[in-house]
């Protein structure tokens, strides 16, 4: 043994004698992970979170979370001599006086945008491939929780600099709290330490932003990853891949190198974006004052859907018995988002109720083979896209020479009409794709080679698929619809008639499909 090997051995021995780690490490160093580009999306979210922790810690060394009024006398001339909060002044200080400060602010903000984008992309991947099915429902719910907290954390984060734009965002958040029936004004006064804006809010959201929420994030992410580890990753279907196995590369060395390297790539791209693309130039907005505003006030993108919903809400308030209920705020600000997120969290249970499928699933679905789910996803996405469009209606209007009124009316009707249309189109598309799969398995791929038959007829030669390709296109399971008899074994009518009818109907819709080729079909065409 060389001396270096001796040192390594004695360190390993020291640790193992005290923890027994060797057995665990031996098992897990060779742990197998399946490979697919779409499995990187969750990784991007994780790495952006680490970048956020690092850059956020840097920023907190100079940021002064206080609404104490100060007179700015720093290096940025246009704001010299203007009264502002210490929070805003210290953000200017970080941007203009600290070397690398502006870069770190940009990295922090870009990483936050990327974090949310990666979470949403990861969620879509998990949804469309059915990765949320048993046994992964817990992880789905944790994921929905992380998405929700991410939106809150991002909002609090861009509110901290106390510039004109972010203050306007807080004003809107305050109006939503205040609109809650019965307790609204009380909650608002507790949150803000009195009337809006007061001087308590920035210090309070600072604690929530840098301590409370990151703590919860760390805990949830840890559980999320431990479950992925323990339950083993899902895999896409293909030859040799079954519900019982997992096919891929071992952690050591392939994934250590790939995942470790990928962290640096994500960090590097974030740094590059921050170097060349400036976002949130708070020095241009000026300090917050409730009497001013800038045109084109826009939240960060992950809040845009909420803003769009609020913008398109019809102007309805109820005044009765000396009280006011602001439906124009409650519906878009709380009720619709509440329904959306609750529905999303419960989706795995709804689907398994409809299909009656209580088995474990480790092979992912190709989205076309679950047409109803895919169509539902497309429907939800369309809903969110309409709200996003309306959330930027002022910007869209100026860029495309439209009026705000046109976009608003388009959104008010579009939000109701377009999602169902998206559902129908997507479902038809999925069935067509299934048909195309069937076709290509049975008849092969057009080869582009024309053959002239002795009769003078021209035909195109079709190349049959390989066994591997055929298997990938036909391995999925096609289950019959749930059959819920209206009477039980003793001929007595079952209760909950309406519920069972609904369930049967939805179940029948869920299994609508193009019959996949089976081995009999294949034998038959071999004769041709």
């Amino acid at each position, binding site marked *: 043994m060389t001396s270096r090997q001796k040192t390594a051995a004695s360190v390993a021995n020291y640790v193992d004698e005290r923890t027994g780690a060797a057995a665990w490490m031996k098992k897990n160093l*060779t742990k*197998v992970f399946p490979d697919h580009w779409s499995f990187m999306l969750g990784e991007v979210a994780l790495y952006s979170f680490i970048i956020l922790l690092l850059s956020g810690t840097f920023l907190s060394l100079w940021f002064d979370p206080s609404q104490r009024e100060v007179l700015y006398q720093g*290096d940025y001339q246009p704001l010299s001599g203007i009264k502002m909060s210490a929070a805003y002044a210290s953000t200017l200080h970080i941007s203009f006086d600290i070397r*690398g400060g502006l*870069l770190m602010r*940009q990295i922090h903000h870009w990483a936050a945008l990327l974090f949310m984008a990666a979470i949403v992309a990861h969620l879509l991947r998990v949804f469309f491939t059915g990765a949320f099915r048993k046994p992964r429902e817990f992880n789905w719910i944790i994921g929905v929780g992380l998405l929700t907290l991410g939106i809150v954390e991002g909002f609090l984060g861009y509110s901290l600099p106390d510039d004109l734009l972010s203050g306007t965002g807080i*004003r*809107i958040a305050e*109006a*939503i709290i*205040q*609109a*809650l029936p019965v307790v*609204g*004004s*009380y909650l*608002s*006064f*507790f949150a803000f330490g*009195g*009337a809006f804006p007061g001087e308590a809010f920035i210090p309070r959201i600072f604690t929530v932003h840098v301590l409370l929420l990151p703590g919860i994030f760390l805990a949830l992410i840890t559980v999320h990853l431990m479950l992925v580890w323990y339950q083993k990753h899902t895999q896409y279907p293909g*030859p*040799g891949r079954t519900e*019982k*196995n*997992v*096919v891929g590369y071992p952690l050591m060395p392939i994934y250590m*190198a790939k995942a470790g390297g*990928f*962290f*640096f790539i994500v960090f*590097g791209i974030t*740094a*590059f974006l*921050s*170097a*060349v693309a400036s976002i949130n130039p708070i020095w241009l907005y000026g300090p917050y004052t*409730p*009497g001013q*505003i*800038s045109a084109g006030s826009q939240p960060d993108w992950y809040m845009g859907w909420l803003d769009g919903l609020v*913008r398109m*809400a019809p*102007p309805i*308030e109820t005044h009765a018995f*000396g*009280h*006011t*209920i*602001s439906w124009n*705020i409650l519906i878009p600000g709380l009720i619709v988002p509440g329904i959306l997120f609750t529905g999303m969290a419960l989706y795995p249970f709804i689907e398994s109720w409809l299909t009656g499928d209580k088995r474990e699933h480790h092979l992912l679905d190709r989205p076309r083979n679950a047409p109803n789910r895919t169509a539902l996803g497309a429907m939800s996405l369309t809903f969110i896209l309409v709200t996003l469009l309306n959330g930027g209606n002022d910007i869209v209007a100026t860029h495309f020479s439209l009026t*705000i009124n046109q976009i*608003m009316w388009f959104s008010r009707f579009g939000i109701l009409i377009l999602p169902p249309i998206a559902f129908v189109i997507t479902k038809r598309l999925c069935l067509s794709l299934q048909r195309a799969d069937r076709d290509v398995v049975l008849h092969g791929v057009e080869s582009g080679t024309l053959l002239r038959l002795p009769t003078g007829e021209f035909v195109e030669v079709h190349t049959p698929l*390989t*066994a*591997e390709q055929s*298997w990938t296109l036909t391995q999925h*399971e096609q289950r019959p619809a749930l059959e819920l008899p209206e009477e039980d074994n003793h001929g007595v009518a079952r209760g909950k008639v309406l519920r069972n009818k609904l369930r049967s109907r939805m179940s029948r819709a869920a299994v609508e499909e193009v019959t996949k080729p*089976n*081995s009999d079909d294949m034998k038959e065409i071999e004769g041709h």
Partner: protein
Amino acid sequence: MSHEVANLSDPGLPAHVHRAADSDPKAEKKAERQVATLFGLSAVGTILFIVSYIYIPLDLFIFVPILGSTNAHQLSLGLGLAISLLCIGLGAVHWAKTLMPDNEVIAQRHEFRSPESERKEFVAAAKEGANAAGLGRRSLIKRSLGLSLGLVGLSPLLLLRDLGPLPGKELEKTSWKTGTRLVTDPGNRPIKPSDLEVGAVAQVLPQLNPDEERTLNNIGKDAVLLIRLRVEDFQLSPERLAWTHEGIIAFSKICSHMGCAVALYEQQTKHLLCPCHQSTFDVPRAAKVIFGPAARPLPQLAITVDTEGYLVAQKPFTEPVGPSFWERSS
């Protein structure tokens, strides 16, 4: 329908395809050089980062095509960091993809459900534990424990009570009183009707006593917009017309929807627009909502002039300003 039976057969894992570097020593050397070059480039990036940190002044601006005028310090610092990080990442991934073994491995999954015997033993152990503690029998203890735990849970909630005062009538009050002078913001100067031409807009605040200091809380409720129209343009009730003065009409600037500053005035159409959610108010008709999510007009402030000819408030606002709340009566 027996789909399962008729499935095509699984051909099993496809054969491993060798990469160039697996068999060709030249390709292997080349890949090794590429990885090493990437790691080397990363070191160059870090050097660029250090040099920029020390030698490029914070306030140096340079012209970069596409980007325009850019802060040189921030740009080169960022590019240095980006190169140093990206190249480490690219190097590691390239290493994994070209030189590390790429044989796919199969591992088996196991059902998560515990074996039946273990489940039975668990239930037995849990029951035995509960019995030993007498959870089933000692209902007095159970109930009193429930009571005390519930009460303990209240204490942290109680502790949050001092987060803020009770709202009381605070949301309905502003600093405007009968005879309060309108002063410009910024500037704090009292204004006369002659200061405003027809079509002009001005933001005003109530004049405060010398001993009072204006806070953001004041501005959040007191901000008022003055707009001067021709008197014949108004379509107001006689009462509301009496609240204007020589064509000057005053509205709360705080949006009746969600409290943003309603700051966009369109002179041609005489509309006020809130940039947050595009609620649009028609000025000649007492800021009636003609578009968008706002459900109420902007509250109008009755104004007149005092003996010295300065604009003053006839009386306080007759309704709360800003967004709605539960206790609001109209």
